[in-house]
């Protein structure tokens, strides 16, 4: 086990960089961070649309969220992979394709977290803000969202863990993230598949377990301050 680590750890961490494209664990983390950062604003907008009083806005967004949540991420990736080039006319590389698929997929899940956060807040908050003379938009922006975003913090960390796990599906379109690199190493070494995939699993475990402990600690802290997430079931517990 150790000699595999000794020979291939640089390749495992950063791929062929700087002599080739960036890959490995660093690419996994980069992809997951970019995905979540881009998905968050979109998720908030979609979440606001899900609770908006206007039907023409609420219904199409609800439909979108249901469709995306009903499809496997792999299906979303395939659509992005085969359709983006034919629609836009530009051949998108694997990183962009995967990023777009992740943003669309995560935004739908984040929308539900945002919705649960907003609906978990006591109704009196909105009513008080309106009674003070604020419009719907201002009441949302100044009173409701800041409070609900804070209670969403643990769910966001959990979503980041899910996103890290989701990036592994870049494997299927040949993106050089850490699972793909592990398979490359496996074909080079050939005799130690069990060890190599154990190392891969261990790498994901250390990363994700650390982060999910962080989410747990945040949850405890918020609960002590009486800001517990009202509907933890809305937070995704599963994904690829």
């Amino acid at each position, binding site marked *: 086990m150790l000699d595999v680590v000794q020979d291939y750890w640089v390749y495992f961490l950063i791929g062929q960089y700087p002599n080739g494209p960036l890959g490995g664990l660093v690419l996994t983390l980069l992809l997951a961070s970019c995905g979540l950062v881009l998905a968050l604003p979109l998720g908030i907008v979609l979440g606001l649309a899900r609770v908006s009083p206007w039907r023409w806005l609420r219904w199409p967004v609800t439909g979108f969220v*249901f*469709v995306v*949540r*009903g*499809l*496997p*991420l*792999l*299906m979303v990736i*395939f*659509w992005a992979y*085969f*359709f983006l080039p034919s629609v836009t006319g530009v051949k998108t590389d694997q990183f962009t394709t995967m990023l777009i698929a992740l943003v669309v997929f995560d935004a739908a899940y984040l929308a539900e977290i945002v919705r649960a956060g907003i609906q978990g807040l006591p109704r009196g908050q909105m009513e008080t803000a309106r009674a003070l003379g604020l419009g719907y938009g201002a009441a949302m922006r100044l009173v409701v969202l800041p409070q609900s975003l804070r209670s969403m913090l643990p769910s966001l960390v959990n979503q980041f*863990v899910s996103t*890290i*796990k*989701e990036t*592994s*599906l870049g*494997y*299927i379109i040949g993106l050089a993230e850490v*699972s793909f690199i*592990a*398979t490359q190493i*496996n074909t080079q070494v050939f005799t130690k*598949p*069990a*060890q*190599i*995939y*154990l190392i*891969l*699993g261990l790498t*994901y*475990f250390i*990363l*994700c*377990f650390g982060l*999910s402990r962080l989410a747990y600690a945040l949850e405890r802290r918020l609960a002590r301050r009486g800001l517990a997430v009202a509907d933890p*079931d809305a937070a995704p*517990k*599963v*994904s*690829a």
Partner: protein
Amino acid sequence: MPLFDYSLLLTGQYHDMLVAGLWLSLQLLVVSLVCALPIALVVALLRLAPVAPLRWLGFAYVESIRNIPLLAHMLFWYFGAPELLPEGIKQRLYEGHIEAYSAIVALSLYTAAFMAEDIRSGIRAIPAVQFEAGRALGFGFLGTMRRVVLPQALRVTVPPLISQTLSLWKNTSIATVIGVAELMYQAGQVESATFRSFESFAFASAAYLTVSLAITGLASWYHHRFPVRTL
């Protein structure tokens, strides 16, 4: 060529491939679900066991499975695990459908970890006095669980278990990476044989969505039929 060729999906060789893929996906769903449920129940009981080492064992199982992507599980069970087996068994495995068995093992173990957490929180939702009353009547730990706590807990547990089933359904698509000829794999095959990517992916998406919506419908039916009773 027409813009959207329905005939490709309705009859012929490609129609048969896609339907065979859907059928295999459904089989993966059912077999994995049947294997996952008992494992999940055992792990949930381990996590609540009165003996500390058993609780640690349950915790280690759940966390080590949940924090690793399903894809890595699949790769391990397909490429890695068979290599560790003795030669004779390995031979026999490679003659059969090893990719399907690996996928079922990965899916079952993965889903069981999530379901165990749902069952555990269902059990914890039952007031502690119920357990104490069972023990006071002279039942052992397992007897109290089986006769008093579990029958009540399962009612609370079914809705989250249905939503885990939905995740399991979507996760069956990942079996495509180790070459199981399920729906996603067949859609890819049809796409590369005909270059009709829109048609084949539309079929696969519609099939995934239909089953997903059916599972969601089941959840809301259950919710309506068996509302949570509070004591």
